């Protein structure tokens, strides 16, 4: 019993030590990245940077809405309907269904990645860059990484569209060959 209590106390102490030292270590590494001149420049440009971020947030939201619509309609109006049509005609739509599933999953990842990025950008905009340039700089870097992740998902979606095109083309070639030999 005594050992359990000691174990729990030890774990708690370790947690407290990590919780107290980790932010200090992060803050230290961030402060090492910025020179005094850079810090001063962030403070000087604080207002204009906030304005830039506000504009970026609005334009990215518009981009998300418009691109999201384009990607959604491609799936709902073409991929799903085409797969259903092939299945209802007892044709093998396995290749198309597989790519559609993969496209769906990437689309879901794109939505999540944007959500994460948007939240990080909101957090960044809340940081007072005139008072805490280091935290602002760190938040900017984090937002930048998350925006890059959204772009990676966009590229992945484009790649899935090409994959679908390829499987449909293969299907078309097979269909032509089979229907040609039947004729």
């Amino acid at each position: 019993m005594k050992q359990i209590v000691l174990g729990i106390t030890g774990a708690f102490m370790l947690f407290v030590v990590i919780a107290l030292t980790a932010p200090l270590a992060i803050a230290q590494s961030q402060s090492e990245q910025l020179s005094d001149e850079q810090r001063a420049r962030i403070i000087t440009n604080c207002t204009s940077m906030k304005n830039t971020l506000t504009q970026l947030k609005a334009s990215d939201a518009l981009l998300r809405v418009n691109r999201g619509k384009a990607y959604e309609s491609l799936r709902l109006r073409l991929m799903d309907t085409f797969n259903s049509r092939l299945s209802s005609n007892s044709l093998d739509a396995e290749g198309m269904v597989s790519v559609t599933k993969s496209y769906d999953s990437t689309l879901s990842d794109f939505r999540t990645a944007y959500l994460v990025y948007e939240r990080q950008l909101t957090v960044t905009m809340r940081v007072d860059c005139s008072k805490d340039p280091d935290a602002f700089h760190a938040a900017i870097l984090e937002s930048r990484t998350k925006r890059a992740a959204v772009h990676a998902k966009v590229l992945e979606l484009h790649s899935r569209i090409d994959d679908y095109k390829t499987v449909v083309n293969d299907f078309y070639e097979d269909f032509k060959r089979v229907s040609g030999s039947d004729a």
Partner: protein
Amino acid sequence: MSDLETKTTDVELTTFWARHRFFLLVFFTIIIALTMTVVSLVVYNLSGSAQLDLSRPGYQSVSSQVEREDNTGEFSASGSVSRETLEDFMKLFNEYGDRAKSVDAFNGDPLNPEILEFTDTTANQ
């Protein structure tokens, strides 16, 4: 004696609820409405709907640029499959696909600190 006391208390309680029932109705209605509002706002924010809502303050400048849905060019899920229908589909898919891929969204690096933070914007003013 004890029974009498209990009865008296019950009567007092009944009288209290009966006397204040309208006030309590209003009070609980407000509590329920507030709870529902909080829940719906939490769902609105957590589900990601808020991020797509361009009618929010600060987004009016871009809300007019939302692309309207084009209802033409939907491929039918029913019907036979022939070489022509496949060709029609491929043409339609290429059209939609090219449109979807036409924008390399979230490209560029506007959050690059070199560009965002260290460009002295005051120097140009």
